[in-house]
């Protein structure tokens, strides 16, 4: 393919993955930013969203569009409930201590993976997109559904931004993120905020999983890669900055696609990876983060 169209294709692909990544990473950004804990099981919430989407669309086998719509609402709710339970049973009781949380969420990861392996199985199963059409560009064809994913993700991101900026709960979240002790002193119910933020983060990841599953398939190991990428995006964007997370998602999502135009796939990945690392080396607080205060 000629260079121009090739680049255009890479940009399209990059945009799709950037949007999905932004939604997944946003969930992690909230959890990491507000609660300051590393949730190693975040990718598993994404995977649960995809698997539940498969289950729900299989139950409502009539129309793919309706089944998918239901899945997009119900799956995140189920995952959110699960996350609330995990917070109440586990995280709250170790007081969100960072290192204990890592071990606990690794345990949670094993539990979720095994449960899915047992009840869903080891196979990768597809889900039909709610609408299927092919967009014909002069040089290549492209999946119409992917463009829908872009739109849906954009809506989700907008929704989260509005919630953060305009609602009381958003205010509580931002206050807790900036200074947890001060927020508590001002009457913010920090414990409850934590629980809801954790659930919200899981729900966003699950929603991303539902959106992505018609493009990829639902497989019980699919959560690891989104986990890693989300982490990278959150840190590169800057802790505590949702805008940074979204921008970083785009930088990383697009650069991966563009670099692969010029180099072989594995080499492209190596270069993209080192590029991200060097961004952090020279700007440790990330693109939009506040530099760490001296204690």
């Amino acid at each position: 393919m000629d260079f121009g169209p090739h680049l255009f294709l890479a940009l399209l692909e990059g945009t799709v993955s950037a949007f999905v990544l932004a939604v997944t990473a946003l969930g992690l950004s909230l959890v990491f930013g507000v609660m300051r804990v590393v949730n190693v099981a975040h990718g598993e919430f994404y995977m649960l969203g995809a698997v539940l989407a498969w289950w729900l669309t299989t139950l409502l086998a009539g129309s793919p569009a309706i089944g998918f719509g239901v899945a997009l609402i119900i799956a995140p709710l189920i995952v959110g409930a699960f996350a609330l339970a995990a917070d109440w049973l586990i995280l709250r009781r170790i007081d969100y201590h960072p290192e204990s949380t890592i071990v606990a969420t690794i345990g949670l990861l094993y539990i979720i993976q095994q449960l899915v392996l047992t009840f869903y199985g080891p196979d990768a199963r597809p889900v039909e997109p709610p609408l299927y059409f092919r967009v014909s560009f002069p040089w290549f064809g492209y999946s119409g559904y992917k463009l829908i994913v872009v739109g849906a993700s954009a809506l989700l991101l907008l929704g989260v931004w509005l919630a953060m900026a305009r609602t009381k709960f958003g205010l509580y979240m931002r206050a807790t993120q900036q200074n947890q002790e001060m927020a508590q002193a001002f009457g913010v119910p920090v414990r409850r905020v934590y629980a809801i933020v954790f659930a919200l983060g899981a729900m966003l990841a699950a929603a991303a999983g539902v959106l992505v599953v018609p493009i990829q398939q639902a497989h019980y190991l699919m959560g690891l890669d989104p986990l890693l990428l989300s982490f990278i995006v959150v840190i590169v964007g800057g802790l505590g900055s949702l805008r940074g997370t979204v921008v970083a998602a785009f930088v990383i999502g697009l650069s991966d696609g563009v670099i692969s135009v010029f180099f072989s796939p594995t080499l492209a990945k190596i270069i993209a990876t080192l590029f991200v690392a060097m961004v952090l080396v020279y700007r440790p607080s990330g693109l939009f983060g506040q530099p760490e205060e001296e204690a």
Partner: protein
Amino acid sequence: MTKNKGDKQTIATTDTGISRRTAFKTAGVLAGAAAAGAAGAFAPGSIIRPASAHQGDGNNALRIGLQVHRTGIGAAYGKWYERTTNAAVKLINGHGGIGGRPIELIIEDDGTDPKRGAEVVEKFALQHKVDFIFGTLFSHVVNGSAPRAGELKVPYFVVSEGYHVASGSLNRYTFQPCITDVRSQIQGISSWVLGNLGKNVAMIYPDYAFGYNHRDFFGAAVAANGGTVTASLAIPPTESSYTKFFAKIPSNTDLIYHVMVGPGVLTFVKEMGEHFGSNRPELFGFMDSLEAVDMANPGLDYLEGSHFWEAMPRYAASQNTIGANFYRSKVGVDENGASVDDSKDIATFSHMFGCWETLYAIKQAVEDSGYRDNTAKDKEALIETLENTRWYNEGIEHPQGHKAFNGKLHQCFGSQYISKVNGGKLELVHTTSIEDGLYEPEADYTKMSL
């Protein structure tokens, strides 16, 4: 500033952390959830199961260990390996066992991980004290595990289709008697493919051991047949979207040779369809891409008219022999290659036969060599018997087809099947001969000491 009375607990922990009672409560709930999950009657397969799946008669039993990928990336294969093995053991034991001795089958999960694989080999040899180990599939696990089997002097039968055994890099205790290796497979099919589908080939393969074999061996075959490789694309293991790679395929390509493995396969085909549309080159793939995947999936209609290598034809109509039909009925696979209990549960038909046939190969070797116990003398007799084996004949013991066995390489050679996708099903169009797949041996295990 008033403190919110609703929030009683402060954030800072007390010195002793959580109370024991709370921990018990939590542990109880979690354990309860775990038990519920584990004991769920509607869960597929038995969950709580001791490692030993078939109890033999204590002293007289022949203990055989199945090293299976129950979890990890190979789990879809492992599931069918286990089913096939259980069916074969049941059949063999039902007919008096091996030389009058029942098989006691012990199953361990290696998590598709080379480190765990080696640990499991030790467990089989030193704790379970098995006579033989078999069943490993993924090449990196074979490479991680086989050395330990060699050190522990346990006969180790690989069911992998990797080129590792025949390359001579393993040890004299390791055999691959009933599944052909990828080099032989490629050798066998390449002249038909290049002669019938096209000579300007773009190769897409995973950036993985298995992929390199295809890159190297098929690349050599292309050159030998007067063709050219227009693109050679190694896809990194974590890749889940392939569209950007299709863009690298130049327009003078007549044939795309694809060997994608893993969960991304359906995406791969769908995106290939979206990218090329109706104006596409010929496609040739290996069934590894579609093991356990339903050909009737809507996303796969793009494959209509394309060709695939199969080790054993998934659709019964393509191989209507007594042996194949009997085997199919015993392992519970219907004429479309799906489980008889669930038409959406597709078998890994091009691999699992290896387990069935290997057990019969073990039976033959034990009975012919007079192997009784785990002694150096008996093992030597067994290994020499195996090395002197020349043929495995097609039949209910070897339903996939005739095989020639090369004692020096510890590897068998057999027929390969090329099928065409027609109406959402696979139809056999060509069967290679054993000679098509022969290559110059590069090793001789018989020269190694035991």
